[in-house]
């Protein structure tokens, strides 16, 4: 029986996407990386919402392409040279002796370009995963799910996120108004003429927004003792630092082992304690909270399974194909089949309401 259409908990999609991104971070095999991007893209096509952020996947995909190009160009002009098949021999800028590691120009090798391209592709695919998460569940929906203790911070982030689109809207309005007055929109004077009213407007709007939030009860203390508030904040913060360190340890294969799982576990413990403490005393309630049901577990499980599989495979030539000597990267069958798990949510998760397929 197919599940009734509903919006999946945004946290589930984000964890799924983080799982995919983790997998992408562990490999430079372009075949696998492209498979990951395609997987993310397929799920987005099947389950995206009609919110404005649903176009994020394409935006992030384009950003990824830019990343690849920039990385290849920079690496071939300035990077450490890889010996191999020379494509073009650029003249090398002679640098003084005190800059031994720096290189400008010199021969561009196929191997160098490939290595840079693989690295760039990895970054690009990780960006794609983030884009997929944005398209599947808008970040503001995710922020609504933060625990009560972080509510105020969450609202502040939501407001900050609406700032950018509003700024763009203001810029186009001011440009239009300048045109009405017959003023130039280009050149240095044009930019200055646009920037000043846009910033003035932004400042004015933030004041009005602050007034509105204040009069609607944002930041009510509700009689919570200050000592409790501080303790909660301290525990939560140190927990989050631990989480960040743990995530870094897990994602960077070169970091010491203690930074990985142990830091993650300790951080989780602290953060959960802090948030539980804070949320128990909070006054606020949540409107239509997203529910966490079996399909959510399923989606998260699919993402995590892929991440764990890639981490467990470790450093193999299948995941990190060497560029020298040159060879066509192989398709590690086990990893590729494992990736199919990440594709499952496109069938197993409930369909998005209101989207005809």
């Amino acid at each position: 029986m197919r599940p009734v259409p509903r919006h999946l908990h945004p946290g589930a999609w984000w964890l799924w996407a983080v799982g995919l991104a983790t997998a992408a971070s562990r490999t430079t095999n372009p075949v696998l990386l492209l498979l990951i991007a395609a997987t993310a893209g397929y799920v987005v096509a099947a389950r995206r919402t009609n919110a404005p952020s649903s176009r994020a996947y394409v935006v992030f995909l384009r950003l990824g392409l830019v990343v690849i190009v920039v990385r290849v160009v920079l690496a071939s002009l300035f990077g450490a040279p890889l010996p191999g098949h020379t494509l073009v021999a650029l003249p090398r800028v002679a640098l003084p002796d005190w800059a031994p590691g720096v290189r400008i120009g010199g021969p561009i090798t196929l191997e160098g370009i490939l290595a840079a391209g693989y690295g760039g592709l990895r970054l690009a695919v990780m960006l794609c995963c983030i884009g997929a998460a944005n398209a599947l569940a808008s970040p503001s929906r995710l922020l609504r799910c933060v625990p009560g203790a972080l509510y105020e911070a969450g609202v502040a982030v939501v407001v900050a996120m609406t700032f950018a689109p509003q700024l763009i809207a203001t810029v186009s309005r001011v440009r239009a108004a300048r045109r009405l007055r017959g003023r130039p929109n280009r050149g240095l004077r044009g930019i200055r003429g646009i920037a000043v009213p846009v910033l003035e407007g932004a400042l004015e709007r933030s004041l009005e927004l602050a007034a509105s939030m204040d009069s609607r009860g944002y930041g009510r203390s509700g009689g919570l003792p200050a000592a409790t508030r501080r303790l909660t904040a301290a525990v939560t913060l140190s927990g989050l630092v631990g989480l960040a360190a743990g995530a870094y340890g897990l994602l960077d294969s070169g970091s010491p082992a203690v930074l990985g799982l142990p830091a993650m576990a300790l951080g989780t413990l602290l953060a959960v304690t802090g948030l539980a403490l804070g949320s128990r005393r909070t006054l606020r309630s949540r409107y239509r909270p997203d529910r966490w049901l079996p399909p959510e577990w399923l989606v998260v499980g699919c993402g995590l399974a892929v991440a764990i599989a890639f981490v467990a495979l470790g450093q193999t030539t299948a995941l990190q194909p060497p560029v020298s000597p040159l060879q066509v990267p192989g398709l590690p069958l086990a990893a590729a089949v494992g990736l199919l798990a990440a594709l499952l949510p496109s069938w197993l998760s409930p369909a998005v309401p209101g989207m005809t397929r």
Partner: protein
Amino acid sequence: MIDFDRVTFSYPGASEPTLREVSLHVPAGELCVVVGRTGTGKSTLLCAVNGLVPHFTGGALAGRVCVAGRDTRTHPPRELADVVGLVGQNPAAGFVTDVVEDELAYAMESLGVPAATMRRRVEDTLDLLGLVALRDRPLGTLSAGQQQRVAIGSVLTAHPAILVLDEPTSALDPPAAEEVLAALQRLVHDLGMTVLLAEHRLERVVQYADRIVHVPGGGALLEVGRPAQMMASSPVYPPLVGLGRLAGWDPLPLSVRDARRAAGSLLGRLAAHSPAGPPATAAAAGDRLADVRGLSVTYGPVIALRSVDLRLRRGQIVALMGRNGSGKSTVLSCLVGLLKPAAGTVLVDGRAPYGRPGRDVLRTVGLVPQEPDDLLYADSVAAECAQADSDAGAPAGTSGAIFRRLVPGVADGGHPRDLSEGQRLCLALAVILSAAPPLVLLDEPTRGLDYPAKARLVDILRELAADGHAVLLATHDVEMVAEVAHRTVVLADGEVVADGPTVDVVTQSPGFAPQVAKVLAPQRWLTVGDVAAALAG
């Protein structure tokens, strides 16, 4: 419920207090309308109710403001959020979230209302304000009127005992305004809510008011009284009251229904006269200035305009009406070349405005946008005018002279943002008129204008028309249209549904009919001025 006890307030750095010795008592369950000229401190009075004045604005407040038993001196706005709901003048600036439903729930979340209650109240509010179809829409995609209703809804859901609204209907079309006011009326009746609202368009609110508070400004004492008694002497009054005063009705009628019952003898006296003919005929002879044929505009999948035809002649004032989001602003944007038509042609003075440089377009068509502030960015009135003259290539002093004629007695050195809304509109108008464009477009020019400012705007528009300009104004203000427009075009869903002499168009649909026309139907009178002229002559 609301108690002001000898409140004096001055903004930081101001030499004169904005409110002086204000004492006001609003009992629970009363709908109280605050009236007065622009810049007399109405908004300050409203913001003092929930403590934004002085907690947020700064400044010195003497005396005591007590709301539902809480002193605003010790309670900042956030601690009053459960008893006072405040809707500001610019609702879009106050949105915290990005979707309609979340915005409605935001205040309740802050107050810790239980989830089940929140759900029910959101549904109730969606129904009450007719927002059901918009519940999932991003706030940025709503029209001004829809945003206004969301803003009202977002404070209503918290069920405050007191609702404070600053110009709640200024951006709304007549039917939407009636809906909002009816909703407020229901809240007062059914829930015993206390409502304090400021409004310039008295014709919309005066009939619902239990009491009127007149803020005379200039440090004079507040005048408080029952509507009929206040309207008899107030310097600001709706056309209906003007008609009542003219005909000597006692008591003064405040609703169209009351007026119609009193109108029998007046109708008899007027039957011998015929209304002074539609003025359109007088001006129809001018050359054709703008020609719009088959114009269609799309925004992505949304069709904003669908084969619109419109001709504008010199010396003619044309009103463009229609509900919020019907495409009025889009027509103006096309005429001034900001938007590319998807199909059809737009010709102004024989040339298409789209794609031509702004300076070039300004010589044929000028637009005063809905937010006149967008046009202003110098730091003094004098600098603004000088800049406008040089942009337009006009002799120095041109726009300064126009501005002084529109608004006499404003210091040249003042910052445009310190002017009142009406004065800023006049400054924007002066800036545009300095290039003397034959076609002048105005988008919602009467928003935030009081009656005297509106009367001056009417004079200005008539002069422009007499000088051979063509004027097109997009507006919701039926009284203004009745006063000034030769011809009225009604848009609905991006199509022209009516186009003809104002008197024909506005008397045909009750939503767009001015008060005088409603009272004196079936005779076709539009304004108090017409009636007065007929009775005198």
